[in-house]
């Protein structure tokens, strides 16, 4: 792009053509105040606080810097009397219809209006005349506090709700002086369809839409702010946590990670009570001879756990022990947990809550495409040509993917949602398919069958970049449409029109969120997902891909770092001699040769009495979607149950050893989101009473079992893990920038935003035979 040179306050500035005056000034280090402008929202040009003087010889005019494009030879003054005067008037006017209640206002100290009034040295005015009077706290929802008396009508809330969330809840009502922000028909937020993402509150510059929590409790300057990664779902959003005395008060989006670019979901935003909860475990415990849990300090409890584990290992062999991790551990903790299981306990029965699906995603996509994880990036979904959302209730469980899909849909991408339930995302969908539970695989086959039959596929792409198409085509001929209709619960017509719609615009983007209850755990399914995308020429391209997302927080990291029964870190099969040899070199230990059990298999083995000891790390077995009775029965059968968790769960009632652990906001380390983005976690605050992290707990346990296996620090664990993981290109955790790094990382430390197309006819994408 051509450059443009202009003068701002006498200073020459050269910027790209198309830049605004505001951007040019920013580049030159010149501050122009703004109010309605927000770098992450579409422009509005409402407040006109940002006006600057454009001088043209002996006359000049005022232009809004936030929208006005630069021109060569432009002469701009940002602080002339004309400008200052204009700014002051606007501030005067704004304050003339404002409560000016700063001394008791929640926003005080972080309010942009207050800051600007200070900057312009404008006091609340004397204007007599109409003032708005709205009800304070006018909406009954649980999370947001609404006080439209303080609204300045910058309409950031409308833009955030529209552009980021795609929910379109807020709107302007009335015109002129009586304009106000409200919902359709003035309905209460939740009745109007609000999704409680909290973006509107995050973007509101004043206290018109604010957070409820912390109100009357804390003043902005008393809050401690720290940024880390949310581990409540696989999107891995970067968020800022405001806390007071180690209590989270609110969570704000952090714009620095491209994973979320400042967006958060309802859970990440508001589900933090468990961190502040009185149900936090704050003491270790061991079960005494009479069967009661006795409080204990941590070391002795760990020692008890270690000797019990040793006893069972020595008596019944490592196969009698299983380790199961939750979704909110760090990569280093998963790494250490699998090291403990494999080396210290001689057991490959190590898994994580999302393991079975993660393993299937890896195997299916690696075999088809050579990259065993989500092919594209969350950001890419917004650039899709057409979207098929399958699997989870996307807006609930994989919200960032869902809002990006809605963004693409707003730009014209047809959105197809196939789900057994009429999930929220279907509201925005062009086509909703009421899919039978468990019908995902059949639907994908059906779509492929139609695409091939009706020749909707991309011949040129297939020829250039894929191999073994014939295998798929032959097998598809054998697939019976009647059976697909049966398994999907959809009519043939529905499947055909879905295929046509999905193929109508490229790139096609498949969004697959794992659903703990219904998602297939077979690699074939993900091979078929890859095939579908290949047929449409939509793999290896911007806005396309197989965007498979795991079941829980950091289960991508869990899989990458070896918390899987079949794989060592870096997806090295434990059954392969070469892998075990490498393990021997790095760990100095001999590993069991057989692959371990996935967690559903573990549960079966407990039932049969084959597994006698279970070490639960950050996972509540009662939250696995199985019947309570069944879990109770299983836990009661165990000879040894170690429960390590941040919060008291029902499993503690069955535990022999209980170990308190911090929550994810109290830990440091790394985590990997569904788009392969490795990001750094930092402690928002120290855990209660300086309690040890999961990493330290496992490490101490290792110390009791075999001190040689201990790892000095999470950094050292990461470094050790990279010896298995070529994907990480030898990067050190401190080298990971704040925006994260997406594996595979090359030797220069450059990550991979999306799977590239095969080059020079090598490593072509591969088709496999379809199976129902």
């Amino acid at each position, binding site marked *: 792009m051509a450059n443009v040179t202009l003068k701002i306050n006498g200073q020459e500035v050269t910027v790209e053509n198309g830049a605004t005056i505001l951007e040019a000034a920013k580049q030159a280090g010149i501050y122009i105040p703004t109010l309605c402008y927000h770098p992450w929202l579409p*422009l509005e*040009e*409402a*407040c*006109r*606080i940002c*006006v600057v003087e454009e001088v043209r010889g002996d006359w000049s*005019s*005022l232009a*809004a810097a936030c*929208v006005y*494009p630069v021109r060569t030879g432009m002469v701009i003054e940002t602080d002339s009397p004309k400008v200052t*005067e*204009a700014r002051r*008037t*606007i501030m*005067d*006017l*704004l304050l*003339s*219809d404002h409560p000016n209640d700063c001394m008791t206002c929640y926003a005080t100290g972080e309010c942009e209006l207050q800051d600007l009034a200070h900057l312009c040295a404008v006091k609340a005015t*004397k*204007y*007599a*005349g*109409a003032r708005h009077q709205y009800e304070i706290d006018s909406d009954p929802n649980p999370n947001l506090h609404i006080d439209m008396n303080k609204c*300045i*009508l910058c309409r950031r809330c409308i833009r955030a709700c529209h552009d980021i969330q795609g929910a379109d809840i807020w709107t*302007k009502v*009335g*015109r*002129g*002086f*009586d*304009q106000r922000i409200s919902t359709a028909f003035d309905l209460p937020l939740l009745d109007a369809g609000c999704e409680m993402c909290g973006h509107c509150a995050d973007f509101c510059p004043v206290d018109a839409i604010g957070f409820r929590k912390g109100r009357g409790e804390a003043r902005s300057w008393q809050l401690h702010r720290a940024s880390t990664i949310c581990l409540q779902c696989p999107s891995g959003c970067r968020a800022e946590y405001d806390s007071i005395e180690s209590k989270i008060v609110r969570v704000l989006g952090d714009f620095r990670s491209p994973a979320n670019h400042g967006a958060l979901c309802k859970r990440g935003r508001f589900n933090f009570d468990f961190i502040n909860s009185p149900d936090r475990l704050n003491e270790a415990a061991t079960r005494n001879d009479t069967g009661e849990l006795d409080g204990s300090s941590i070391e002795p409890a760990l020692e008890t756990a270690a000797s019990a584990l040793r006893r069972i290992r020595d008596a019944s062999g490592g196969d009698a022990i299983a380790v199961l991790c939750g979704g909110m551990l760090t990569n280093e903790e998963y790494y250490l947990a699998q090291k403990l299981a494999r080396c210290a306990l001689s057991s490959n029965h190590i898994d994580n809550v999302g393991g079975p699906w993660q393993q299937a995603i890896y195997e299916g996509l690696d075999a088809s495409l050579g990259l065993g994880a989500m092919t594209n990036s969350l950001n890419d979904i917004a650039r899709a040509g057409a979207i098929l959302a399958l699997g989870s209730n996307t807006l609930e469980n994989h919200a960032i993917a869902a809002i990006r899909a809605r963004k693409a849909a707003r730009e014209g991408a047809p959105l197809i949602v196939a789900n057994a339930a009429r999930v929220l995302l279907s509201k925005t969908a062009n086509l909703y398919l009421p899919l039978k539970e468990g019908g995902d695989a059949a639907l994908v086959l059906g779509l492929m069958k139609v695409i091939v039959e009706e020749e909707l596929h991309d011949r040129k792409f297939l020829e250039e970049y894929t191999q073994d198409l014939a295998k798929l085509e032959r097998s598809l001929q054998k697939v019976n449409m009647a059976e697909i209709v049966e398994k999907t619960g959809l009519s043939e017509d529905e499947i055909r029109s879905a295929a046509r719609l999905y193929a109508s615009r490229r790139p096609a983007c498949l969004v697959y969120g794992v659903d703990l209850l219904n998602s297939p755990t077979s690699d074939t399914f993900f091979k078929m997902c890859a095939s579908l995308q290949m047929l449409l020429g939509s793999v290896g391209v911007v806005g396309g891909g197989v965007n498979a997302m795991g079941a829980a927080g950091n289960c991508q990291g869990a899989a990458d770092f070896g918390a899987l029964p079949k794989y060592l870190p870096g997806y090295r099969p434990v059954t392969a001699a070469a892998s075990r040899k490498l393990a021997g070199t790095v760990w100095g230990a001999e590993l069991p040769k057989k692959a371990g059990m996935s967690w559903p298999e573990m549960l079966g083995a407990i039932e049969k009495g084959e597994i006698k000891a279970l070490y639960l790390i950050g996972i509540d077995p009662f939250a696995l979607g199985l019947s309570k009775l069944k879990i109770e029965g299983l836990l009661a059968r165990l000879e040894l149950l170690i429960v390590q968790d941040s919060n008291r769960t029902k499993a503690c009632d069955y535990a022999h050893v209980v170990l308190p652990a911090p929550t994810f906001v109290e830990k440091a380390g790394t985590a990997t989101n569904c788009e392969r983005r490795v990001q750094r976690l930092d402690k928002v605050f120290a855990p209660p009473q300086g309690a040890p992290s999961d990493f330290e707990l496992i490490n101490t346990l290792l110390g009791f079992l075999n001190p040689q296996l201990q790892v000095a620090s999470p950094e050292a664990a990461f470094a050790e893990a990279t010896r298995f993981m070529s994907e990480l290109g030898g990067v050190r955790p401190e080298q990971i920038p704040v925006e994260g790094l997406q594996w595979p990382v090359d030797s220069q430390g450059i990550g991979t935003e999306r799977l590239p197309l095969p080059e020079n006819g090598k490593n072509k994408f591969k088709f496999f035979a379809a199976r129902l």
Partner: protein
Amino acid sequence: MTNWEPVLLANVNRPNSEKIDTYLRYGGYEALRKALKMTPDQVTAEVKTSEIRGRGGAGFPAGVKWGFMPKDAPVKYLAINTDEGEPGTFKDRLIVERDPHSILEGVIIASYAIGAHRAFVYIRGEFFLGVKRWIKAISDAYQKGFLGKNILGSGFDLDVSVHRGAGAYICGEETAMLESLEGKRGVPRTKPPFPAQKGFWGKPTLVQNCETLANIPHIILRGGKWYSSIGTEKSKGMKIFCISGHVNSPGNFELPLGTPLKEIIYEHAGGVRKGRDIKAIIPGGSSTPFLTAEKINTPMGFETLQAAGSALGTGAIIVMDETTDMVEVVRRITRFYVHESCGYCFPCRIGGQRMLSSLERLAGGKGSKQDIEDLEYVAKGIYGRTFCPMGTGMAEPVLSGLRLFRPEFEMKTAKN
């Protein structure tokens, strides 16, 4: 008094003037036939030669605007502004109701010149008869082959439809009109991009006032040179002046641009009621600054009125005699703009209300010196600083009222 042969209003007083047969009988659609034989560029060139400037208020040279329409864009639109909301203005209504085909012919020629195949009429919702006339004119034009596919065998296609506003002055502003046409809330858009770059549904769109368009057939038939021979140096052609207020015969008068105010008021509009003196004149619709009686010899042209401290605007002249309470006039005008403020931008939204509060106090005899100061401060604060020109239009009458009639404002505070 010079009596000019009417051009734009030649038909309006004929019986059944709105009918297509009447229009055809007096040479209607001949210009279209002629234009379709020219190249689009030749048509645009003729309009440029005529030097006609927009009649919707802003006075932008029409030919230049046509030239801004990108040649290579596959889809372009024409939008016809019949929103006519500026107080004092009632010329578009007359043409639409009495001679709709004269505009429609201009619409077809303009569409041909810029390469638009779809044109939208946006008409003020209260113009019930106008809406009917537009619709009838369009359907008759389809019948006769002036609209639709392959117009008059030329290969040129054009469809036109009519869309009603819902009672908002701001929807006359061209970008707010486009928003409204798209079915959205009528608020202006950020400029640039201008409609010629990104207009209706994001496509290049020419927005033109209907009086402007009604001139086009005459320019094509008689030539741009003929047109530019009428008027003053920078104001060419015939113009419909709407006169209202304290004159003996208010109404629409078509005269060449540059006709002195005095002639229009005293010779065409029958002079001031009861032979009184003039106190103030609004020359171009209520958003143009007041003139005092001293400026009565000003020719009604863009540049001449500007030199006199006002503007031609829509050419709507409002005459106020010596008995007029100017504070009340300013209050009444301001009330209109405050009521019509769309509320998009801060200065207009709040500033308007603040001005009105002060004016209400002053007009009601309860005002103070502070109110006058506030009024001036806010009006200056709004002027030239709003998102769209309406805010400035709202400040104009206040500022010029204070400039020219300050003692009247001060008198109102005498008691307090």
